[in-house]
C-alpha cells in the first residue's frame, strides 16, 4: 500500500478546535507530522496540550477542522462516519489508559470483539484469539472477566485486542498511566516487542518519561504546537 519512502501517517497543516460555551477554543494549530512505517513514536506534552486530540484524529475517532490527514495512503479526514468505523476496525489497534475492556465479557470474548465484524469463521476466530492471548502470555486467563484480572493483565488483554486484526498502526493513549511500575514495564516491553519483532507502527501518548524512553522518536506538543525532540 505504501512505498518504503512514504510515511504511514502523513499530516499536513492540521487544525482542530472545540466549541466551549459558544467560544471556539483552538486545540491543534497547523500540525505537520510524518510517522514512518514501523516507527515507535511518543507524543508528550502537558495536560491540555492536544496530544490525545492528535492521537484521536490519527486513529479516526475525531474529525479535524482542516488540513490533510492520511494514514496508510487513506485520506482519513475525507471518510464518512460509516467508512471511518470500517477503516478503524481494519487498520487501527487501540490501547487505552483504563484498558476499556467490556466488563461482562471474558478476556477471550474481549479480544474476539473486533473479529466479530470480519467474515472469519468461529473456528478461525478462536485460533486468532488464542494466538493473541499467547502472545501476551494470558492464554491461561482467557475465561476470566476483566474484574478478575490485575491492571497489568487487563492492559495485556487490551493489547491482544488491539493486535487481533493485524492493524496498520497501534495507537496508545497513556497505556501505563494506570499501572504500577512493574506492570508498566511489562506493557511497555510488550509494545516494544510488537514494534521491533512484528514491525508494528506504534504511536503512544504519554506523560511518563520512562515510557517515552521506549520510543524511537519523541514529539512534544505544547499549546497545540508540535516540537521535535530526538529520542
Amino acid at each position, binding site marked *: 500500500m505504501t512505498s518504503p519512502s512514504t510515511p504511514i501517517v502523513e499530516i499536513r497543516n492540521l487544525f482542530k478546535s472545540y466549541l466551549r460555551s459558544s467560544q471556539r477554543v483552538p486545540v491543534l494549530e497547523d500540525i505537520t507530522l510524518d510517522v514512518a512505517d514501523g516507527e515507535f513514536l511518543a507524543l508528550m506534552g502537558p495536560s491540555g496540550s492536544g496530544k490525545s*486530540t492528535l492521537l*484521536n484524529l490519527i*486513529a479516526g*475517532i*475525531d474529525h479535524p477542522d482542516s488540513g490533510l490527514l492520511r494514514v496508510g495512503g487513506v485520506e482519513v479526514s475525507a471518510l464518512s462516519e*460509516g467508512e471511518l*468505523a*470500517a477503516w*478503524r*476496525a*481494519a487498520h487501527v489497534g*487501540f490501547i*487505552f*489508559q*483504563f484498558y*476499556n475492556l*467490556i*466488563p*461482562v*465479557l471474558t478476556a477471550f*470474548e474481549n479480544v474476539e*470483539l*473486533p473479529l*466479530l*465484524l470480519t467474515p472469519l469463521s468461529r473456528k478461525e476466530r478462536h485460533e486468532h484469539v488464542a494466538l493473541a492471548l499467547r502472545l501476551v502470555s494470558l492464554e491461561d486467563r482467557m475465561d476470566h472477566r476483566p474484574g478478575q484480572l490485575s491492571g497489568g493483565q487487563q492492559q495485556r488483554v487490551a493489547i491482544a*485486542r488491539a493486535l487481533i486484526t493485524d492493524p496498520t498502526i497501534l495507537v496508545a493513549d497513556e497505556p501505563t498511566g*494506570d499501572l504500577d511500575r512493574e506492570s508498566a514495564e511489562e506493557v511497555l516491553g510488550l509494545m516494544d516487542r510488537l514494534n521491533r519483532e512484528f514491525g508494528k507502527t506504534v504511536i503512544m501518548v504519554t506523560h511518563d518519561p520512562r515510557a517515552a524512553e521506549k520510543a524511537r522518536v519523541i514529539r512534544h506538543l505544547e499549546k497545540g504546537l508540535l516540537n521535535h525532540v530526538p529520542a
Partner: protein
Amino acid sequence: MFLLKLILRNALRHKLRSALTVVGIAVAILAFGLLRTLIGAWYLGVEASAANRLVTRNAISLVFSLPLSYKDRIKQVDGVEKISLGNWFGGIYIDRKNFFPNFAVETVSYLDLYPEFVLSAQEKSAFLRDRRGAVAGAKLAERFGWQVGDQVTLQGTIFPGNWEFVLRGIYRGLRANTDQSQFFFHWDYLNETMKKTAPRRADQVGFYMIGLAHPEQAAQASAAIDGLFKNSLAETLTETEKAFQLSFVSMSGAIITAIRIVSIVVIVIIMVVAANTMAMTARERIAEYATLKTLGFDARHIAGAVFGESLLIALTGGVLGLLLTYPAAAEIGRRLAQFIPVFRVPPETIWLDLAAAAAVGVVAGIFPSWRGATINIAEGLRRIG
C-alpha cells in the same frame, strides 16, 4: 449471537437493580391486568347476552311494572318464538351484606330461554314440581354452603315478609362467562302470595324475556312490541338483552372510565421508572459504547444492545406479572364473589399485558438507545476512570 450474549449479561450485571425493575414492571402489569379484568367483569352480563333475546320493560323505569296481560299480545308479534317473565325480588339472605341477585321467574319458559343455566334432569323436574322450590347458581351455593334440599329464607324488601324456599337444584354455567351467582324461584308463588296479601300488586310483571326465531329480527320485533303499547298506561321499552345489560353498565360509566385511566396511569408510571433505570444504565456505560464504536461497531449494534436489554427486562417483568395475574384474579374472584360473579382473566388481557410490557420496554429504551448510538467517541472515552 454476540448481541444476545451482551444483552443477557448486561441485564444480569446489576442483579439487584434489574430484579427490582423486573418486580416493579411485574407489579404494574399485575395491576394493569387485574384492572382490565375488572372492567371485563363489569361487561360480563353484556358479554353473556344472547343475540336472539329481547327484554321488554316499563318505558318509564325498571321500578315500574307491566301488566301480565301483555304476555299474550307480545307472543303474537312476528318473530317472537318464546316468552318468559319475571320480577326482580330483591330479597335479603340473613343480612344485607349477603347480597346476591334473586328473581321470581316463570320457570319452564325461563329455563327454556336460558339453556346456559345447566340443571340435571332430576333437579329440574324437582324444581318445576315444587311451587316453593328454588334454584341457585353453583358459586352462590358454594358461598353459603347450600345443598339441594336446604331451606332458604329470604327477607323481602320489595315484597314484604319472610319468604321460604326449598333449594331444589344448583345450576352450573354452560360457558365460563355464565353468571353462577343468581337465585330463581317460581313467579307463580310470588304472584299467588301477592293476590292474598296485596291484590293490587298481583299480576304485575317486572320484565318480559323474549326469544326470537332469528336475531336479525330484533329491531323490527322491538319496534312492533313497543308499538302495541304506545299511548297505553304502561308503555314498554324493548331492547336486546345486550343493550339492556349495557344500560346497567353505562350507569357505572364514570367508574369504568376511572378504572381505565388508572390502568393506563400505572403503565405510564412504570414506563417512567423503567426509562429512568435504563437512562442511568446507559449513562454508566457510555465509555463502553464509545469503546465498541472505536472498535468498529456501529450505531445499530449499540442501539440494539440497549434496546434489547430494555425489552428483555420489560418482557421478563411482563411475563412474571402475567403469571401472577391468574392466581391473583382467582383469589380476588373468590373474595369478591358476591359483587363480581365471574372474575376471569379474558384472553385479550394476555395480549394487552404483553403489549403493555413491550411498550414499557420500547419507551424505556428509546432515549438510552439514541444516546448510546449517537455518542461522540472521543467524549465517551473520556468518561472512564
